[in-house]
């Protein structure tokens, strides 16, 4: 299982803070994003336009980053701290 987290506006859009997605073997973040868009079409606008950053285990990731069982992936909309 991969633990997928949504923050701020993405949490509101998806209507969930956390979802568990089963993965078999190693997949790339790009593969996981496809699964997420199938489950939540409202994520397409952000993912296709790259209007977000994605972290894997709390480090920034790229679509090529390899995801494995037990990882935590977070979808992070544009930051507005400070």
């Amino acid at each position, binding site marked *: 299982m991969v633990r997928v987290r949504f923050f*701020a506006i993405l949490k509101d859009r998806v209507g969930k803070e956390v979802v568990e997605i089963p993965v078999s073997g190693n997949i790339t973040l790009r593969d996981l994003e496809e699964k997420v868009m199938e489950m939540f079409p409202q994520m397409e606008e952000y993912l296709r336009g790259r209007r977000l950053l994605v972290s894997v285990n709390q480090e920034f990731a790229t679509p090529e980053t390899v995801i494995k069982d037990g990882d935590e992936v977070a979808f*992070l909309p544009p930051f*507005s701290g400070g």
Partner: protein
Amino acid sequence: MEMVRVQREDFSIDEEIERVKKTSKAIGAVVTFLGTGRDISRGERIQGLEFEHYEGMAEKKLAEIRNRALKNFNVLEVAIVHRVGKIGIGENIVLIVVASQHRNDAFMCCEWCISELKRITPIWKKEFTEKGEIWVEEHP
């Protein structure tokens, strides 16, 4: 007390400055940046704010900013405190304290720290306006 923190409660600017000053007798300049809640944004009246953070990662990014600041600038100490949760108009949001031997290094470093905080730290602001709640998606 950690030099970088994310916390719900307010902070004392005097106490944070004192903590930084105590770290070295070579400090001759302290520059602070204080971000506060304003009541206007993109022409809209703001009634209040709420900040959310990615617990763990936000703290890690603030620590990374401090470490890079200490490595890349000629400064002696850096403290960063960011609040989360509901924050009223006029209340403190974020404090950055930079100490150095001479003022110019502290001024430059402080500006870099707040810009980098806005760029890489997973913290989000929600504004409560007369028309409803809005997640802010840009950081001027």
